[in-house]
């Protein structure tokens, strides 16, 4: 989650700006913990479905790495598009 997504704070007085920034930091912490949990759940579900050993095999590990990396790239792209929509920019189809 990127701060720029939530609109600009420059127009506010200093004290309010700090209060808003603190609020955003808190949201970001909560957000990143949730993201961590859900990413683990998703990559586990997508990549791990046999239980013959107690540790990940090479293939599962590669899958998890790709899954997580891909999710982060995906999330950045969604963030970009979401920010555009929030700022009211029209995008071509």
């Amino acid at each position, binding site marked *: 989650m990127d701060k720029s997504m939530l609109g600009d704070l420059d127009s506010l007085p200093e004290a309010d700006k700090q209060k808003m920034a603190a*609020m955003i930091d808190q*949201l970001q912490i909560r957000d990143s913990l949730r*993201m961590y949990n859900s990413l683990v759940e998703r990559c586990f579900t*997508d990549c791990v479905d046999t239980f013959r050993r107690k540790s990940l095999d090479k293939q599962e590990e590669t*899958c*998890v790495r790709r899954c997580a990396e891909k*999710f982060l790239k*995906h999330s950045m792209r969604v963030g970009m*598009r*979401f920010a555009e929509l929030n700022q009211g920019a029209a995008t071509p189809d």
Partner: protein
Amino acid sequence: MAATNPSAALEKEQIFGMAEKEMEYRVDMFNKLTQTCFSKCIENRHKESELNMGENSCIDRCVSKYWQVTNLVGQLLGSNQPPM
């Protein structure tokens, strides 16, 4: 400059409260959007760590449509029409 007037201070609190709710709403919406579009657009065998072209355009369209659905449902809920 500083709000000494109690009603003005109260009003400010309310505005902050609303801004906080608004931000929470947006963060939640962003998270749901990310989850949903990942499920819909990304092939779940994860053969690659890069997004391919098809996935990229799927993501862009998915975000745009999700946004449209948000507005549409918002309008329907706000239009005060009895359901059905």
